[in-house]
């Protein structure tokens, strides 16, 4: 029985210390939940009067003091889609190389280092690169294409990292079985490895979308403009060589450059951007949870 052991002062102080630490650390962790909930809540409350479907589907008017965010929303969709089409194949194949082809050695080591560093390059340096390489050197001018290329290179590490994780979770025995019936390396990848890791790869792609949608600095000088009027309700209003508005840039503009906008307008824009990003992220998380529950091996 526990009662037969007398509690020594040492044991009691140990216990007290343990509890105190647990509460302290718990509070630290909880303090991260708090800002997320309060910030999102506060933004939504402030933005509430303006939030409607009309806000999404109307162009900004009156020097960006009225109207909605249509041109910016569509611009963001263009940027995200284009950069996804560039980054997804390259990123997935780079991960395939690292996980399926690369042997341990200096080259692999350098590639890994490059991926880590690519993820660490400041977004404004990516902007300088995009301006120097795509806008000026390649002669694309400030355009959706140049901005998307910049974004694609910036978000490549996101796709590479998550795809590698997905590929690594496919058991080695699957590949060995396939090789032993005579399949080549690429046949094995195409027929066995990729189909078995597709959900994990999708998760990474979705995270890339969320990251791309929120970026501002890389597109400021490569393709995004403060204001551009486009046809409302026409989803093909931009072309790749156009400059475009973007939600993130629009939020920056109306917060810092437009002084007398109605109070709810920047909040509504922030909620639109934040809502898009968090929804996309929630999708990725949901996919991952389902995937883990369904895992067959």
């Amino acid at each position, binding site marked *: 029985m526990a009662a037969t052991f007398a509690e020594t002062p040492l044991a009691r102080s140990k216990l007290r210390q343990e509890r105190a630490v647990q509460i302290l650390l718990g509070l630290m962790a909880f303090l991260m939940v708090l800002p997320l909930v309060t910030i999102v809540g506060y933004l939504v409350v402030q933005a509430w009067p303006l939030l409607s479907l009309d806000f999404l589907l109307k162009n900004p008017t009156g020097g960006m003091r009225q109207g909605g965010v249509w041109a910016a929303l569509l611009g963001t969709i263009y940027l995200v889609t284009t950069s996804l089409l560039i980054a997804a194949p390259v990123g997935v194949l780079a991960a395939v190389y690292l996980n399926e082809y690369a042997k341990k050695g200096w080259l692999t080591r350098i590639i890994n280092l490059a991926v880590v560093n690519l993820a660490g390059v400041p977004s404004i340096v990516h902007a*300088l690169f995009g301006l120097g390489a795509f806008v000026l050197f390649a002669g694309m001018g400030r355009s959706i294409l140049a901005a998307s290329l910049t974004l694609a290179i910036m978000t490549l590490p996101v796709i590479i990292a998550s795809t590698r994780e997905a590929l690594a979770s496919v058991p080695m025995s699957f590949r060995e079985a396939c090789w032993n019936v005579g399949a080549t390396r690429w046949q094995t990848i195409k027929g066995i490895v990729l189909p078995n890791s597709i959900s994990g790869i999708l998760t990474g792609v979705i995270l890339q979308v969320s990251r791309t949608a929120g970026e501002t600095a890389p597109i400021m000088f490569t393709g995004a403009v403060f204001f551009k009027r486009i046809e409302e309700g026409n989803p093909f209003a931009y072309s790749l060589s156009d400059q475009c508005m973007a939600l993130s840039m629009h939020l920056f503009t109306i917060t810092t450059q437009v002084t007398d906008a109605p109070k709810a307008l920047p909040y509504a824009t922030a909620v639109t951007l934040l809502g898009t990003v968090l929804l996309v992220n929630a999708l990725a998380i949901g996919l991952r949870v389902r995937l883990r529950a369904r895992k067959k091996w």
Partner: protein
Amino acid sequence: MGEQAMNLPPAPVVGPRPLSASAGSPRGPRRSRFALASERVFEWVIRLCGISAILFVFGIFFFVLREGVGFLFGGLNLVQFLFSTEWYPTSVANVRYGVLALIAGTFSVTGLAMLIAVPFGLGAAIFVSEFCGGRVRETLKIVIELLAAIPSVVWGFIGISVMNPLIQEIFHVPVGLNVLNGALLLALMSVPIMVSIGEDALKAVPDSFREASLAMGATRWQTVRRVLLPAAKNGLLAAVLLGVGRAVGETMAVLMATGHAVNIPKSPFDPVRTLTATIAAELGEASVGSNHYQVLFVIGILLFSITFAVNLVADLIVKGTAKG
């Protein structure tokens, strides 16, 4: 020796059979020329994608340098650039490009942010990894992931619209856009990366370490402090460094929230301007090819070098742990 080997069953295939078209080859089945060619093409495409990351990192360095190199080696006074606090890039009479105040701005905001973020980030990492289980852990990890997903321009907006009035009211200062504001935002932005990398580092410590310590009668906190922290020291340091790298490179949030005054701060309530914010704010006005435009690219190279060094050190530290 040789006879013994012949009696053994054939070695299992541990890799795909080498490509060959020769019929009846004992090493693999016959393949059509087309299959072989396409296999080779795919391999090359994949290899190219694999090394693309290296190409991009070099490309970034090359193209940023290319735009700034003319002025860097022809005209820019490097001593003034690094050690003067006078940043007057558009002055008509006396143009001066001293970035010391901007470096001070970057490091004051980053430093204060780390003072806040390191204890919270590591504390939360320890809590998530060692003190909670199941549901709570999953929920916290999702929250951390969502926190990491908030775009920096939204943080900047929060700095202007929420933190600014709060700081004015709590500390009775005239302007709330200052070092403290930027540091709080950067802390919130870099905590998630510290938690996830720190948690990985703690998880990498074998469970036998924990079991041994607990079996000796140590409490969980004693185990963390005396066993896990020393064992995971390098990984935790790397987590902090990656947080620093993120904070140094952050642009939009500090552009919007730190008050935009070129100034060596004397208190957390002074406004400053960082290296990143300067590029973002002035690149639009500088005409392509001008000295002002080129000096902004030189700042870009400086930033690239700082974050490259930080990431390299973090990587070496992590690799060191993996070996040891």
